[in-house]
């Protein structure tokens, strides 16, 4: 088949979507040579790495580096263009959903059945194809600038290309197996990218943590896939999810486990798949890896938190939603076990992570917990049957979270820039050397009482690798910032847009519309007296309030007031290409962080409904056809109560944050007012409810303790003691038998090996090393075998005259 055929056939076109980035990965991997190894301490590598004494790092040549950046960019641009074409085609299809773009080939024949591989474009895929390639492209462009000074930039581009390719594969996959392949490749990439600066102990530890945590979940997910295959004989989305009979069958068959307790096969498979998502999308209790994943370069954080990895988890549950709903109906108050699991885990995670985010000082870590919280929103929405709202929030969240991460990356980059500046002009900066504190250590830290220095958890301490050794300046600590709006205006404005969108600033931002839709759905169930809806509504409203508050706190601490350190005073992005590539994506994404919300405005909404949704909610109307007609739920009727709730929580949180952090910004040396306000609760939140410590106690320490007990008590005490006793008895008996031994047993025992040795000494002569002799023996043996064969098969007798 020619390329033209792929390009002109809309069923085949989706195959090409992931090809660009995947090809880019291979091209970069194969064509950029590892030019030479330099010591990690050399000035070429930044010269900031005394920790890595004796370590060698590969550096590619400048040409290779340029080529890899271009190739990576080209790959993702191709993917984007093809995606646009696929999306355009999808919009032109009448009744997309009932009819889909689909193409399947057999992949692996397994006896009577075969695993298929194929692509599918239905409404859900279409909206993902609007979001993913766009966000990825922005991240790629941003990386050009952000990674410009990293000697391993080509490795970086290879890996994010593979990452993007895997994500696109996952999105266009038409079956669970191919989805799982993309899922796992992404897991690998996240491992490699989180540990990108592998010289850092905290980085590679975070990488291992992310990999093993998600692995636990993936294995269970694979179990679910295997069970689904065993039960239905297919893994194709269309055959399972758009097929009333199969869903009915799954919903009525008792499960293998707990089938007696009323769990259906659909329920068990659903739970398994949801556990996979809990790992991938970092939901409680497997959320621990995501904050540590901040060890990777910032574009990776954007990739993981917005465009790819965590979206993939949510995408998978949205995709498999009909299976979870099978046998129940959340809109009528009938909840299946997977839906209950989704709503409880989601709502709990949303509030849990939001409270942690309030007390974090690391600019990226706040965003990490905010991501966990927002993903909880989506999970909870799905759990109460708000399918469209979950998908909508997934899209809007991807835009504003990618924006926020990249903006925070710019902030960090700027702070590092400022740090270099301070070091170069150490003595020119007296006006910023505030009285009573050395430039390197901050009173804020000691007043805080539990600043970074007091942490034993290495993963909590997140210096970017370009910080100098022995110098505790942390460019990611918001307490070190302040006043950045003056030196980094574009970053400030875009960060503000993203933050307001995250907080759900009413009417204008995308985040408002998608969160409002979740709350509207939850309220609709609440008004009918459904328990899970009520739980979700209350917890999510609270979480939304906290979200607005910590967003404002972050904005205030970072951008408002006066610089609290000399580094912050000199923070900027510099000029030229680096600065340009790091601001352009921010501006584009800021645009989407606002307008993406207007595609899903409820039609009854005053004024806005008439402008943006004259006939029907366009997003709802488009995406709902992904589902079977029987499952297509109406949008909840418009109600003022959830809208007002959205208003109140968003404005309330923002207002509170404004009062505390914006109107009267922190000055250098002043402690965070939150510390005093929360009192004893603050350390708990700051330390993330001690979940990491709990895991260390509950899972890691007992393993170690058990090993110690096994070694000291059981092994040395019990087993060794018994063995010593036995040995002593045996020695005594042995003495007794010694006499017998010497002449009888030794006599026999010795002569057997002697005989063997004699035989060996004689027989080994056959191995002369002369090949012709071996051949002769082989020929003789072959003749003998042929003769025996001929005789036993009666050939000789038959043929005899």
């Amino acid at each position: 088949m020619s390329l033209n055929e792929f390009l002109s056939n809309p069923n085949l076109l989706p195959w090409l979507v992931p090809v660009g980035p995947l090809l880019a990965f291979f091209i970069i991997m194969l064509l950029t040579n590892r030019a030479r190894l330099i010591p990690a301490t050399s000035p070429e590598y930044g010269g900031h790495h005394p920790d890595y004494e004796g370590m060698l790092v590969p550096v590619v040549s400048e040409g290779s580096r340029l080529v890899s950046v271009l190739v990576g960019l080209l790959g993702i641009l191709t993917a984007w263009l093809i995606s646009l074409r696929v999306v355009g085609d999808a919009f032109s299809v009448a009744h997309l959903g009932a009819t889909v773009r689909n193409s399947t080939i057999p992949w692996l024949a397994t006896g009577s059945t075969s695993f298929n591989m194929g692509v599918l474009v239905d409404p859900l895929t279409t909206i993902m194809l609007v979001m993913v390639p766009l966000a990825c492209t922005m991240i790629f462009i941003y990386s050009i600038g952000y990674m410009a000074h990293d000697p391993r930039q080509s490795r970086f581009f290879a890996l994010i290309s593979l990452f993007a390719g895997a994500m696109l594969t996952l999105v266009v996959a038409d079956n669970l197996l191919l989805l799982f392949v993309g899922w796992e490749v992404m897991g690998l990439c996240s491992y490699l990218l989180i540990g990108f600066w592998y010289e850092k102990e905290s980085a590679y530890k975070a990488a291992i943590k992310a990999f093993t945590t998600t692995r636990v979940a993936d294995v269970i997910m694979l179990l679910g896939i295997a069970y689904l295959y065993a039960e239905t004989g297919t893994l194709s989305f269309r055959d399972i999810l758009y097929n009333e009979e199969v869903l009915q069958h799954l919903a009525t068959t008792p499960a293998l486990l707990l089938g007696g307790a009323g769990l259906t096969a659909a329920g068990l498979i659903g739970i398994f798949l949801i556990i996979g998502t809990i790992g991938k999308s970092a939901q409680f209790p497997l959320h621990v890896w995501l904050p540590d994943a901040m060890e990777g370069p910032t574009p990776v954080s954007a990739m993981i938190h917005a465009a790819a990895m965590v979206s993939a988890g949510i995408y998978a549950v949205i995709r498999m939603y009909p299976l979870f709903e099978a046998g129940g109906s959340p809109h009528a108050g009938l909840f299946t076990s997977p839906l209950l699991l989704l709503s409880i885990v989601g709502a709990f995670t949303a509030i849990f992570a939001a409270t942690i985010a309030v007390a974090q000082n690391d600019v990226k870590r706040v965003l990490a917990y905010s991501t966990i919280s927002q993903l909880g929103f989506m999970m909870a929405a799905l759990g109460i049957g708000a399918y469209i709202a979950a998908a909508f929030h997934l899209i809007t969240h991807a835009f504003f979270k990618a924006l926020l991460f990249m903006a925070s990356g710019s902030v960090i980059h700027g702070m590092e820039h400022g740090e270099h500046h301070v070091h170069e002009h150490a003595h020119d900066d007296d006006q910023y050397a505030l009285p009573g504190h050395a430039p390197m250590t901050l009173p804020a830290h000691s007043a805080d009482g539990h600043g970074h220095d007091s942490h034993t958890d290495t993963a909590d301490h997140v210096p970017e690798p370009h910080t100098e050794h022995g110098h505790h300046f942390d460019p990611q600590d918001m307490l070190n910032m302040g006043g950045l709006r003056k030196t980094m205006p574009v970053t400030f404005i875009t960060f503000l847009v993203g933050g307001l969108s995250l907080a759900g600033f009413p009417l204008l931002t995308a985040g408002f519309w998608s969160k409002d839709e979740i709350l509207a759905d939850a309220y609709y169930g609440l008004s009918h007296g459904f328990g899970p809806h009520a739980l979700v509504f209350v917890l999510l409203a609270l979480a939304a309030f906290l979200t607005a508050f910590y967003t404002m706190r972050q904005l205030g601490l970072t951008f408002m007031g006066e610089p609290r350190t000399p580094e912050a005073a000199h923070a900027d992005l510099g000029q030229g290409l680096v600065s340009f590539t790091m601001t352009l994506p921010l501006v584009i994404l800021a645009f989407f962080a606002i307008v993406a919300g207007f595609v899903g405005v409820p039609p009854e909404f005053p004024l806005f409904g008439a402008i943006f949704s004259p006939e029907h909610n366009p997003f709802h109307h488009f995406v709902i056809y992904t589902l079977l007609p029987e499952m297509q739920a109406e949008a909840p009727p418009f109600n003022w109560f959830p809208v007002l709730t959205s208003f109140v929580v968003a404005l309330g949180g923002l207002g509170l944050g404004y009062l505390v952090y914006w109107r009267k910004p922190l000055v250098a040396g002043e402690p965070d007012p939150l510390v005093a306000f929360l009192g004893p609760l603050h350390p708990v939140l700051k330390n993330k409810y001690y979940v990491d410590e709990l895991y260390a106690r509950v899972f890691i320490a007992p393993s170690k303790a058990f090993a110690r007990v096994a070694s000291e008590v059981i092994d040395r005490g019990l087993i060794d003691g018994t063995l010593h006793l036995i040995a002593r008895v045996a020695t005594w008996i042995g003495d007794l038998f010694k006499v017998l031994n010497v002449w009888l047993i030794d006599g026999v025992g010795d002569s057997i090996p002697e005989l063997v040795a004699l035989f060996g000494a004689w027989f080994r002569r056959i191995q002369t090393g002369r090949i012709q002799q071996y051949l002769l023996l082989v020929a003789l043996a072959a003749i003998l075998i042929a003769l025996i064969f001929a005789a036993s098969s009666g050939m000789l007798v038959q043929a005899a005259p």
Partner: protein
Amino acid sequence: MVPLWAYLLVAAALFCLGMYGVLSRRNAVAVLMGIELMLNAVNINLVAFWRYLEAQTMNGQAFVAFIFVVAAAEAAVGLAIVISIYRNRRSVVIEDVDIMKW
């Protein structure tokens, strides 16, 4: 036409002569020549069977073509090994190359 068994008989004789050469010649190059003779015996068999039993298809001849390929490769690598041995040990007598033993 000459009967099939006549060809088979000649091929058998050629095969055995080649094998005798392989088993008994001391010179490594001569051993390689013996192997060529054996391969030729196989070729005669294949072509003869093809001609008498399967003349409508070309499978027999295709097999022979592949044997040509293998023989060429074998001769090239075999002689390279002989030359390499000669360079290291100043000898092409197979019996001298017998260090792979007890």
